[in-house]
């Protein structure tokens, strides 16, 4: 699992590379939770996440809850069709704002 975090003006762009499951989710969470500050804008680029397990999706929801609690915004972009469908039928997708491309995600946050 690789995580890169870049700042684009006031938006934190996080790129995840690799599967997010019970073994990687804790470390991802550890690195992302500190990003959730007051009014923070976070964009998660999932283009290179082939698979997210149940634990991975729970980590995402926790991050969403923590961001919203601080009046921040979280946007997911680049979800594969498969992942999007899994998130949809398990109810996770209902919580998130999503975009197809990075640009779309940035536009939502701006």
């Amino acid at each position, binding site marked *: 699992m690789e995580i890169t975090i870049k700042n684009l003006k006031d938006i934190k762009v996080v790129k995840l590379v690799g599967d997010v*499951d*019970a*073994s990687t989710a804790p470390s991802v969470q550890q690195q992302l939770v500190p990003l959730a500050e007051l009014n923070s804008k976070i964009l998660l680029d999932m283009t290179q996440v082939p698979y997210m*397990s*149940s*634990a991975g*999706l*729970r980590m995402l*929801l926790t991050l969403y809850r923590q961001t919203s609690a601080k009046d921040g915004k979280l946007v997911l972009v680049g979800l594969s069709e498969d992942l999007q*469908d*899994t998130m*949809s*039928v*398990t*109810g*996770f997708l209902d*919580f998130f704002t999503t975009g197809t491309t990075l640009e779309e995600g940035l536009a939502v946050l701006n």
Partner: protein
Amino acid sequence: MERIDIHPTHIHGDFKLRRGKPFPFGATLVPGGVNFSIFSSYATSCILVLFAKHAPQPMAEIPFPEEFRIGNVYCMVVFNLDYENLEYGYRLDGPTNFQEGHWFDNQKILMDPYAKIIGGRDIWGIPPNWDDVYQHRARIAFDDFDWEDDRPLEIPPEDQIIYEMHVRSFTRHPSSGVKEKHEGTFAGIRDKIPYLKELGVNAVELMPIFEFDEFENNRTNPETGEMLLNYWGYSTVGFFAPKAGYAATGRLGMQVDELKALVKELHKNGIEVILDVVFNHTAEGNEYGPTISFRGIDNKTYYMLTPEGYYFNFSGCGNTLNCNNPIVRNMVLDCLRYWAEEYHIDGFRFDLASILGRDPWGFPLANPPLLETLAFDPILAKCKLIAEAWDAGGLYQVGSFPAYGRWAEWNGKYRDAMRKFLKGNGSVGEIAQRLQGSPDLYAWEGREPATSINFITAHDGFTLMDLVSYNWKHNEANGENNNDGSNDNDSWNCGWEGSTEDPGINALRRRQIKNAVAMLMVSQGVPMILMGDEVGRTQYGNNNTYCHDNELNWLDWTLLETNADLFRFFKNCIAFRKAHPVLRNRQHFQNRDYVGSGYADITWHGTQAWNADWSDSSHTLAFMLCGKHAKQGNIVDNYIYVAMNMYWEAHWFEIPGLPEGMKWNVFANTGVTSPEDSWEPGTEPLLENQTGLLLGDRSVVILVGK
């Protein structure tokens, strides 16, 4: 402050352990690890067996240290497990003695009876590896679903309109229009919520969704050679786990979330979820069945045994769960509480519920502890409890099921009486009782009309289209020489066995279908319709399709176009019921005027107003409901008049007069072809002649007076 109990005290190989907690039973995520807890009355030792997901052989076997046993419960925390990729089972040692009822065998790996997720049949229909040492594999579930503000809907029982359905059958047909990967799944139902809303039902009753093994059937279809399945799933492998093969995400082990997401979405749309639960037997079958769990853990506790050690078979399925043993009773209670609390389930329908009232030797109990416990349980307090009030051992308790003021019943007598009346037999005296919510069965005990779950068809037996198309069952495809399935169908083929091009017969069949649903929707009590009846689904005369994963069961969505008139009629009848509280009374009729309207709450009529023909040869009956008596006079509704002519000839019906200033309007007349056979409530046209009408042969008219 850090808790002291997150620190291991024992070590086994690479695993760090600690004494666990007995409650809750099953495997539970705790800080740093998983708490495993299992009980057995007769075991002498227990080993926890751990597998990596899908692995053929265990990665570890950890004996419970004797000091981790409390009473008959083995409990242990194992730390640092990759719980998402873990499967676990148990080996138990103890006596082996058939006559004594002990089946311990430490060579077998046993599934936890409290398993919340069960792997092994992750994707529907993928043939299992029969050589696998562990067929149905317990896994660990997350219990942190985000329900937001959802909770069970608590729709008043008398306001329910139940749709009995099979998860896979609903959207498996390619015509369903759902995404291919959602076909036949919980996700597929969610995609079709708009359809359920349009139809107007407010409760879905899901045929069994507890994990079962669809491969539990060794028969083949003699016509095609195709392997038959246990398709319906009335054979529980695990009582706490949803059927993985019913989830589009079962392959990812996310069935728990998918089912919860479905329940949440149905609730958002005003639709309750009732589960058909099978506690009368398990998938372990008779003496020759597989050892999956219960048999190897505590055979003598879980099953009713003869003095010789054989299984009693009150279920007709090989064994009988020992429901009034205190331990099993607690398991059933734990299970229902889990579904109510964890999945927000609104109600339960108990398959062959009379078994739940038998003692460990099979005798019916006057005051069955299990039924009483469920009736008074605080967590289940608002859940609907519905009994299939009979069993395969000859106990028939419709009208006498031990109810404690809580239990409703599938009213088999309603079904039988309405079917007979529909085909031109039966007694109008009985029909009058059935239309009123069967006060003859329930009022004497103070049980409300909603005690009566009214239905004409259900999964067992003919579909409504087949009820009017076949005189006899045609179950050859089930591989039992047409010996299975009920012979008492009270069906009538309208003149030809099976499908026909004869326009007269087909017109009569459509009319009979409409007659059936019209009578059902104006009956006091709770109506239940069978999935697909609203579009004329056929099973080609097969009245026991439990074993077919094909078009005998799948709902063909093109019928929605072919039989658009039936769908429209069902929809209007449901809307009519919802629009009129006088059809949904909480209390039984009193047969008198107690609000000073000049009309009794219900009055009976025939071809002559105020004079019903109660004779044995009568096939006509009409009744009027006084709108001022709706909901015991608390709500003012319209007056409703229903006339039923089940003669083969038309009859003139004289109509009772309305209070000054009111007029009769026609809501439905099944004797007229679509679209004039029914109207959207509120748009009903005025009846031309206010004093009488000609009711066609085998027809029902419903008028609304306003």
